[in-house]
């Protein structure tokens, strides 16, 4: 045994053992439960096997999950929030309605994109310091095409990667193959999004049975740096050669950058990150981060470890009218577009625009056809909290539709009665009072075993406590096994009876719906809290913000009651516009829309559809910052919901029109 190995073993016995004796950190039970609730919801939401079913509300819907690829799956750099554009007047390129990246902003200059749409978290006012040149009235839009289109194309490429007997996963469903599939062979793993032409490759240097943890002779190297057998130029050549072998080297001019990860100050695999970006194509603009690119990570010994590829080739082009810079700046001030600075945490500031240039960025059609759309990139200085730094902000220059009612709304329901004023509400700011706790404990028949300030434990294992993350409360009953199964209708009746009798409820109860989270063991039934006739809803599907969930074992025995995000009146009232006025605003494209299964928000002034049928109109409370776990402010909006048809696809939508009367 050499000295180093002996030394290592001694160190493991001493320091290693002391490290292993460090105390376990306990997971907060509330956090654990809350996260599990979220995961359960997400599980059922994304499970194509289970439908999200409403009960007796007249709005039952069976989601066509998996019809559209989740945007997050494409590639981080092109995470999009969606806006549709009516480009039907252009004849040269046959285009579907276009989804364009207009409302994305990046935190800290990273690729992390958050959607905005209601009140954006970005509190930046864009100003023009000096007069900008006039924007060109027209610009080019490009339709792109992936070089590979079929599963066989990708299988051929997989073989060129060195994959022997590659196996296609996800072939079980034709729908799945058309959106995403993977090819696996030994340590090679290839993920493909064929519609957009994006693929990712990974060489996973491990085997499941490689479990040996002991030191092996000859494996410890004197110095990690000695691993490096290639340099940057060699890495570039290897990356180029690899793409050539795959017949994926871009035909257009490109340039390469190389990052030597040995210089990284954070723990990453050692090697070279080779990135290909366009050199003279429309998207060859360094300011626009959402262009085409290829990244290949070359290991220290010259092997390709992983790669991501997003380089569909230019196919067709067409000239389209462009918006002017004033419109673009207005949109940025509304919170749309990308805003890039080195550090930004949502603080208030002023972005003083000094320069502008036009580039192109990637955007996708509803059928995932990739396009390069004209985009303007503003640059200047951003000042906030007495610091000034450079910024860029980019936003597509696609012109808004001039036509009224571009979504082709047909109202197939009565307008609600006009309420001239609505109460303002806020999330409850304190936990249960002692009296409320006692009253609930009595209602659930808990025989106290122990009691703390905000919780009571029962002698039969029951528990009741307030939930600190939303100042709601949670009751859990006794564990129970059953073989008997009631019908859904009967379970809803039982839940309704319990809900009606619960003593601590912040509003009245709305109609019940079955949550898809009960699984085999439970019926989980939700009741929205209604505040003077108005529910608190999320802008995205499905749901409610403030509601109560009752879980029953399948035989009808109560398991749990969870009162979520109770609200309280603020004592102020908001003057409201009439439903007729709201309808008028809807028809004038003045709304924000969410579409089931699609990520983010669509703005009415850039949305177009073949047909949209409104079947329900109601006043709702909406959190002003739906992207946050807790929202300080809530506002009232008219929600118009129904079905919209875009390029032959029918989808559920909800269009929100602000209800507040302007002074």
């Amino acid at each position: 045994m050499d000295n180093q190995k002996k030394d290592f073993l001694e160190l493991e016995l001493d320091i290693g053992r002391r490290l292993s004796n460090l105390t376990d950190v306990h997971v907060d039970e509330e956090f654990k439960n809350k996260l599990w609730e979220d995961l359960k919801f997400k599980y059922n939401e994304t499970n194509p096997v289970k439908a999200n079913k409403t009960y007796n509300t007249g709005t039952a819907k069976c989601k066509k999950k998996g019809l559209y690829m989740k945007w997050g799956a494409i590639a981080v750099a092109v995470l999009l929030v969606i806006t549709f554009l009516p480009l039907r007047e252009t004849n040269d390129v046959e285009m579907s309605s276009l989804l364009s990246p207009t409302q994305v902003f990046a935190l800290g200059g990273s690729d992390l994109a958050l959607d905005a749409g209601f009140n954006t978290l970005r509190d930046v006012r864009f100003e023009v310091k000096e007069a900008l040149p006039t924007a060109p009235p027209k610009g080019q839009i490009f339709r792109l095409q992936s070089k590979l289109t079929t599963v066989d194309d990708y299988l051929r490429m997989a073989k060129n990667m060195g994959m022997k007997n590659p196996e296609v996963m996800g072939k079980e469903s034709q729908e799945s193959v058309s959106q995403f599939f993977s090819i696996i062979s030994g340590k090679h793993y290839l993920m493909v999004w064929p519609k957009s032409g994006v693929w990712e490759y990974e060489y996973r240097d491990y085997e499941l049975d490689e479990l040996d943890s002991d030191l092996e002779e000859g494996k410890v190297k004197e110095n990690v740096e000695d691993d490096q057998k290639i340099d940057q130029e060699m890495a570039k050549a290897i990356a180029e050669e690899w793409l050539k072998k795959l017949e994926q080297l871009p035909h257009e001019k490109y340039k390469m950058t190389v990052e030597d990860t040995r210089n990284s100050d954070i723990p990453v695999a050692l090697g070279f990150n080779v990135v290909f970006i366009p050199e003279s194509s429309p998207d060859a603009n360094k300011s626009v981060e959402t262009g085409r690119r290829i990244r290949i990570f070359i290991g220290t010994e010259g092997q390709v470890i992983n790669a991501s590829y997003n380089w569909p080739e230019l196919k067709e082009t067409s000239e389209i009218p462009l918006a002017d810079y004033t419109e673009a700046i207005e949109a940025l001030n509304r919170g749309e577009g990308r805003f890039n600075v080195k550090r930004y945490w949502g603080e208030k500031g002023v972005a003083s625009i000094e320069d502008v240039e036009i580039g192109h960025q990637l955007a996708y059609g509803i059928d995932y056809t990739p396009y390069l759309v004209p985009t303007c990139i503003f640059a200047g200085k951003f000042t906030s909290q007495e610091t000034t730094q450079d910024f860029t902000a980019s936003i597509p220059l696609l012109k808004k539709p001039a036509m009224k009612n571009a979504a082709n709304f047909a109202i197939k329901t009565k307008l609600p009665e006009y309420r001239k004023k609505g109460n303002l509400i806020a999330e409850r700011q304190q936990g249960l009072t002692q009296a409320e706790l006692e009253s609930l404990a009595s209602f659930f028949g808990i025989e106290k075993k122990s009691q703390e300030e905000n919780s009571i434990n029962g002698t039969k294992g029951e528990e009741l406590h307030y939930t600190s993350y939303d100042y709601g409360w949670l009751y859990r009953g006794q564990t129970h096994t059953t073989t008997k199964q009631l019908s859904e209708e009967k379970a809803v009746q039982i839940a309704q009876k319990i809900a009606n009798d619960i003593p601590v409820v912040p509003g009245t109860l709305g109609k019940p719906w079955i949550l898809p989270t009960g699984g085999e063991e439970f019926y989980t039934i939700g009741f929205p809290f209604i505040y003077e006739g108005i529910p608190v809803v999320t802008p995205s599907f499905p749901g409610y913000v403030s509601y109560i969930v009752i879980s029953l074992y399948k035989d009808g025995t109560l398991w749990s009651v969870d009162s979520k995000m109770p609200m309280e009146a603020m004592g102020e009232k908001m003057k409201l516009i009439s439903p007729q006025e709201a309808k008028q605003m809807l028809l004038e494209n003045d709304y924000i829309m969410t579409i089931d299964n699609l990520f983010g928000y669509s703005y009415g002034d850039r949305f177009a559809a073949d047909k949209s049928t409104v079947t329900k109109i109601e006043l709702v409370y909406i959190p002003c910052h739906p992207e946050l776990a807790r929202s300080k402010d809530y506002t009232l909006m008219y929600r118009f919901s129904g079905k919209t048809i875009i390029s032959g696809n029918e989808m559920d939508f909800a269009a929100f029109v602000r209800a507040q009367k302007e002074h």
Partner: protein
Amino acid sequence: MEVLTSEQELHLVKQAQIEIAAFSRLYQFYLPKLYNYAFYRTGSKQEAEDVVSFTFIKALEHLKKGEIKNISFKNWLYKVCSNIIIDNWRKSSRAECALPCYFDNNDVDFSEKIDDKLIILQTFYQLSAEQQQVLLLRYVQDLSICQVAEIMGKSEGAVKQLAYRGLKNMKERMAQGNG
């Protein structure tokens, strides 16, 4: 202590694609482990909660897409968790955990052998981020060198070297009284 064999884990991962109970089992089993790991790496309860939340959300998404195949779920979780921590550091331009927030946390019981644990932790947080990661995974999380190598995307030799240097640094610092 519950143990999950790799065979059981593989079975659960497969089942979890269609059955929430299987996913629940994986969640119950791995949440405390990941939370511990994230907490010791970030030194913050809040950050650890954020990190494990993102990790499980990602796990769920990948499970549903059938993308966690031919890989140990455990290794995958730690890898994703580590990447999220690194991403957070990148975003905040922070290269290491701040020690004080660790000691502010009431969820850690230091009543037993507190002096030794304090010294160990103080020295531990003086190591490079990579060395911290290796030591946490290897000795606190009790993973094999092979698993650590997979999680960190490094060769086993590189991991052993990092572990060796990390332990040696700690020993030297403690001997010098710098801990």
